[in-house]
């Protein structure tokens, strides 16, 4: 009988990690005191503030793992982890740089040209250059291999035509990484013939339309590409490598603290409220349970960061974190309802009520974005040998 055991090793923590954590915490406390931001739920998706992002860049806290010649600090993945979790629990408006810091920067570092690395990475690290993801389409959601955006070879480059959907923050972004078909669909190898391109969003033929989501935020976008010309060196890596690049990023994308901390700001406030109330042992047990699960999810997530740092690609473990973590950040809101009913719109009550209603209105997206939980369970089942 084959044994199936998952492994979540302990990260190696050097003292500079905790020093950095305290620096970030102090910075955030100072910013709060100055009133430069107001804590929000789901801040890594809903909170866009380019001034705030620039100040983070000035502190040197974007792209911290990258080489110094490209604006990085050559710190470890754990340093980056600590920065991101402190930003998330503070509810800081970090969406502008989130995708570039987490995904696009590392992709350029791995597959980009020298010109991209020199011209773009230092500006991402400075907090002035932002990225959107061009993956989903009207006809391609969970089934991403069904993308219909095409790139046709032309004199000196490619012409891209198609529509990308749900790209967060595209209205402030300079670039989008666009997944496009570069050869015809082979029904036996549906993931072949896909290529990622680096596209400037001010290119002729690009039009962006904002989409308002159910929480009232307009960060989603529909982006149209009509015969948009990109030069040959806009290809990320090799032609046909698109699928490999996207799936290679998944362990990183799916296992980070943003997959279980999107509503933590509300829980932190709930603890403050509870501390001021008379003894209620049931309430303590409900909130205590949430703490236990956060701690356990964080152990898993940190374990994956350690595996990634060691050069492994724990895709199944990452899918587990995202499946459990995103359901959990929804559950926080449902549990808090027992003590603090949520029925008024945002900006109708006190800060705590606003955080709760924001969290509730945003929570349907948690278990959809970046791979639905049904897709994730399929990946876990495959990892267990069931399919």
């Amino acid at each position, binding site marked *: 009988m084959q044994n199936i055991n998952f492994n979540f090793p*302990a990260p190696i923590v050097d003292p500079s990690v905790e020093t950095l954590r305290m620096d970030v915490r102090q910075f955030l406390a100072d910013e709060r005191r100055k009133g430069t931001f107001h804590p929000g739920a789901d801040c890594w998706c809903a909170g866009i503030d380019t001034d705030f992002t620039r100040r983070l860049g000035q502190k040197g806290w974007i792209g911290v793992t990258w080489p110094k010649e490209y604006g990085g600090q050559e710190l470890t993945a754990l340093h980056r982890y600590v920065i991101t979790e402190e930003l998330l629990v503070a509810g800081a408006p970090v969406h502008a740089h989130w995708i570039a810091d987490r995904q696009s920067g590392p992709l350029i570092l791995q597959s980009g040209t020298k010109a991209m690395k020199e011209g773009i990475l230092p500006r991402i690290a400075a907090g002035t250059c932002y990225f959107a993801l061009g993956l989903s389409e009207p006809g391609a959601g969970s089934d991403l291999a069904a993308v219909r955006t095409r790139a046709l070879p032309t004199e000196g480059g490619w012409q891209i035509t198609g529509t990308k959907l749900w790209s967060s923050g595209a209205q402030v972004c300079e670039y989008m990484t666009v997944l496009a078909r570069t050869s015809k669909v082979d029904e036996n190898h549906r993931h072949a013939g896909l290529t990622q391109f680096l596209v400037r969003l001010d290119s002729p033929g690009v039009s962006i339309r904002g989409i308002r989501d159910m929480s009232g935020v307009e960060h989603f976008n529909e982006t149209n590409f009509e015969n948009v010309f990109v030069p040959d060196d806009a290809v990320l890596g090799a032609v046909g490598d698109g699928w490999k690049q996207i799936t290679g990023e998944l362990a990183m994308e799916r296992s980070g603290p943003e997959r279980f901390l999107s509503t933590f700001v509300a829980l932190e406030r709930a603890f403050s409220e509870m501390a001021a109330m008379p003894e209620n042992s049931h309430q303590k*047990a409900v909130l*205590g349970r949430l703490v236990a*699960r956060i*701690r*356990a999810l964080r152990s898993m997530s940190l374990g994956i960061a350690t595996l990634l740092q060691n050069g492994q690609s724990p895709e199944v473990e990452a899918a*587990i974190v995202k499946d459990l973590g995103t359901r959990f950040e929804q559950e926080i809101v449902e549990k808090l309802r027992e003590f603090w009913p949520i029925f008024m719109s945002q900006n109708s009550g006190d800060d705590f009520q606003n955080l709760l209603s924001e969290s509730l209105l945003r929570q349907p997206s948690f278990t959809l974005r970046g791979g639905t939980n049904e897709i994730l369970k399929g990946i876990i*089942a495959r990892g267990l040998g069931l*399919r």
Partner: protein
Amino acid sequence: MEQSDQLILDTAERIFADHCSADVVNAADSGHYPTELWGALKEAGLLLVWVPEAEGGVGGSMGLGFSLIRRAARYALPVPLAESLVANWLLAQAGLASGEQSNGFALALDALPELNNGELHGVVEGVAFASQVSQLAVPCLQSGQLTIALVNVDACEISEQRSLAGEPRSTVAFKGAVPLASGTVHSGGAIELARGMAALTRAHQIAGALEHIVTLTVNYVQERNQFGRALSRFQAIQHSVADIAGESALANAAVEQAARTVSQPDCEFDDALMAIATAKSVAAEAAGKVAQLAHQAHGAMGFSHEYPLQQYSRRMWCWREEFGSEFYWNQWLGQHVASKVSLTDEGGAWASIARAY
């Protein structure tokens, strides 16, 4: 992990594989105590992992002991290996470490027995395997101080009962029993830490059982055919098994983190209990969810006594209650974190969570 640790775990694994088949576990449930298995474990010195080398023990780390406990639970080991390890750890806390092999422990969750004028008085319920060991390590109070008394089993009144899993759980009454030895534990928070160690032991046992249930279920759904195909081909089954694996992974991450925390020589008391509370809470909750899902996936087969799933689900249902269920530890956590939070100073809850790695 050190090479010597690996050797010890390999030895244990061999003994489990040779002497602890599913039939042996079911026979123990029917009253046939597996003396061969118990003898082999003693002979290999595995009960002495947490006894210092100077006292004739292994001098193993906390991590090694918990690994051993978790692996034993993967076999639903029906003998008091975990109990002996904890008993020897308790004795070592009181400076009573010895190479004696056959100790159990009697730790009350509420009122501890009292040691007055050299006589022990009190009752402890749910003592595991009391009749199967020769001595009990009994945490008790002597002038308000936590003391560990080593008591001969013959000096106690034992009324033997059975747990949900058919394992011995007895009510042990001390009516003036004179301990063979006793020693006071001087560190702060010693009572809570003793209970915490027992809770963490049960959490590791649950984690081991969860791992085995994942394996059992994955194998079963691949072998069992209905409607002309393996159960594993049905998406509803795939998702259910993914949920089982997820809860098991979460519990395992939590118990490993806790083992690491309590292993640190300079570990602060609060950090140790936070980690222990997390581990027991998450493991106990997983025990309930996974038992339900795994039995559902196994159909009627898993409900039979012959099929081994029940050996694990029944044990988990028992272990999740012992030394504090998830409800007990959740409340402890809520109380503890609330005490770190004030309305004026934001971020207290997070600061207490982020202390751990």
